[in-house]
Structure formats: structure tokens, C-alpha cells
């Protein structure tokens, strides 16, 4: 396999099987409706994902989701700090309790999963990071690893 190139647009490694040698994620981003990217920017620049604190036996691993409002040729802009008020319910199930940390990519909240009645950590990724598929990938991978580490069946 030949060495993969780097996408000049987003900086991610372009896989060897990319169509026409172009970054497939940026190609998909270019398909977003212009109005949609604007709406995504206005409505949900942040999207919650949860790393489970404890899971009921037999439950599935927490699905990891990331939002992707950008698409378009200009990445979204939003202040770096998040301003969700405590008590807000994210994704219809995670009630934010208190912020417990922040880092280069976003803010972590202690939250309550009201659907499964358990404590979780909800991490927000900054909107401008969402314009970078490599950052989204890192964010998602980190969440997956975290979810595995905190599973009660784990070491």
C-alpha cells in the first residue's frame, strides 16, 4: 500500500482507498446543504456524548456520537467556553449537573442519564474542533476507550 497523503483541507490522513484521492470526509462535508450548515451552526454547535460512569449489567456500550455542523467551506465559529446552564437536558436524556473539567478540546460535565438513571460524564467538543475530522476522530476514539475502561466488566 502506498503511503497515504494528508488532506490539505482538514489535515486528516487520506486513506489509500479514498475516491479520486480526495479526502472522503471533506467530500461528504461538501455535500451538506448550505442552509443546513447554517442551521447546524445556529442550533447545535455542540453535541453531547456520554462516557458511562456505571452501566447496568448486560447493557450495551454507550454509543458515541459526534455532531458535525460544518460542511461547508468555512468552519463554524463559536466561543471556546461552553455556556449550557446546569439542569439543561442534552440529547433528550443527559441532565447537566456541574462542570467537572475542561481541556483543549472541550468541557466535561457531571450529568445524570435520566433514561437509565445513572451518573455519566458528558463531554462537549468545541464547535471549531468539529470542522477538523482528525479532531473529531480523536474525540470519538477517546470516548470509546473511556467507555471500555469504565465498564464494570473491565479490569
Amino acid at each position: 500500500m502506498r503511503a497515504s497523503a494528508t488532506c490539505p483541507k482538514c489535515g486528516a490522513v487520506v486513506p489509500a482507498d479514498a475516491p479520486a484521492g480526495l479526502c472522503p470526509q471533506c467530500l461528504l462535508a461538501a455535500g451538506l446543504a448550505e442552509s443546513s450548515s447554517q442551521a447546524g451552526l445556529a442550533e447545535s454547535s455542540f453535541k453531547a456524548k456520554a462516557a458511562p460512569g456505571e452501566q447496568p449489567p448486560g447493557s450495551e456500550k454507550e454509543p458515541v456520537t459526534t455532531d458535525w455542523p460544518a460542511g461547508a467551506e468555512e468552519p463554524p465559529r463559536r466561543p471556546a467556553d461552553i455556556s449550557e446552564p446546569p439542569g439543561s437536558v442534552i440529547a433528550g436524556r443527559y441532565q447537566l449537573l456541574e462542570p467537572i473539567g475542561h481541556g483543549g478540546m472541550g468541557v466535561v460535565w457531571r450529568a445524570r442519564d435520566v433514561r437509565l438513571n445513572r451518573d455519566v460524564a458528558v463531554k462537549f467538543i468545541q464547535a471549531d474542533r468539529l470542522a477538523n475530522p482528525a479532531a473529531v476522530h480523536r474525540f470519538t476514539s477517546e470516548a470509546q476507550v473511556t467507555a471500555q475502561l469504565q465498564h464494570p466488566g473491565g479490569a
Partner: protein
Amino acid sequence: MPWSTPTTHWGLVLAAAERRSSPQAQQALEVLCQTYWQPLYAYIRRRVADSVEAQDLTQAFFTEILDKKYLRSVTPQRGRFRAFLLTACQHFLSKHWARARAQKRGGGRQLLSLDCAADKRREPLASDRTPEQEYERQWALTLLATVLGHLEREYIQEGKRELFATLKPFLLGEHAGLTYAAVARPLGMTEAAVKMAASRLRRRYRNLLRSQIAQTVAGPEAVDDELRHLFTSLGR
């Protein structure tokens, strides 16, 4: 997939299942199967030991689809065609393995040749992706390749092969490594004209991509959601 076909992927499958399909629809269904051969192959390849068996099983799956035997036993849920096809394939594999265990194989079934798909086959890259993740990733790549191929054919038909080849990288927009000014002279165009041509190319590409995706989801309102989902699947 012929772009002139007015119906959706769902329409083709449902018509086939209900034996309402015209010869044209049958042909379109065959093209549909060829188009989505690669994601299904990649999925099956991750579930069996070798590529030959994966090819056989992929062909057998589409043979059943085209013979409509399998479709009659499935109740398609409106939604993503991608998810439906994966579920159908999983069902097919379960049945196949159950049958194989019972009969120790050797049914002497005649497989339909899908040679045109074979020459497009790509072996999935080595990774730790699950079969389902590989399927979705290949689905996204196939979708993009289909749309880019159609776009290129359109430009070639208009005598603009060189223009397409030069402007293709601008599908991602202008960036530091590639400027309109840099390609204007070789194309014999002004920078402004190149910028306008690239903008037209991106607009046509976006429309084709959205049109193709719209055929695989329940309605046009789901296109952006599907785009985001496929985007995520490529990041795995």
C-alpha cells in the same frame, strides 16, 4: 445508478418484492446491486475466512435479491436503504450458514455472474473495524465514487475533461496548496472564470451527492442526517 430513473432505491426494491417491476426497473435494480456490491462484499469479507468465499456469498446474496425470492420474505422498514441492505445481508448469511450446517453445502446452485462488479472490487484495508463499521465505511466510499464518476462523465460529455481533471481538487474548496490563480494560466482562463467554474462544479457535485443519498433514505429531509452519519463512519 441511472440518474434519469425517477424512482428511489426503495421504490425499486418494493416494486421488485411485489412483482410490479418493469424490465426497466429490473435493470435498474441490477445496477443498484452492482453499485452497492463493494460495501456488502467488504462486510462479508470481514465475516468469512477468505476472499473467494466472500465473493461467492456476495454474489449469492445479490442473486437472491434479483430473483426476488429473498425480498418477499423481508418486510422493508422505511428508513435508510443502507441499513435495510445490511439487515437483509445479515439475514441472508444466517440462513446460508444454517443451510450449510444442515446440508454440508453442495446444493449445486447456479450463481448469477456479476462480473462487472468484480473488476471494481477492492479488498478492505486491514483495520480493527467491525464488519458493520467496514460496511458503512465502504458504503460511504462507494457513494462518493459513484457520484464523482457521474460528475466526471458529465464533464467529459461536454468536452470538458481537462477542466474537470484540473478543478476536481477544488471540490474541497480553495486552500493553501491550491489556488485558482495557479491553474488559471494552464487552463487559459482568468482567475475569476476559474473561480466561477469551480463554484459551478461544487454546486453540481453537491446536488448529485444529495440526490444520490436522497434515493437511499426515507425522504429529502433525512439527507443531512445521513451525510453526518456517513461522515462519522469514515472517522472510525
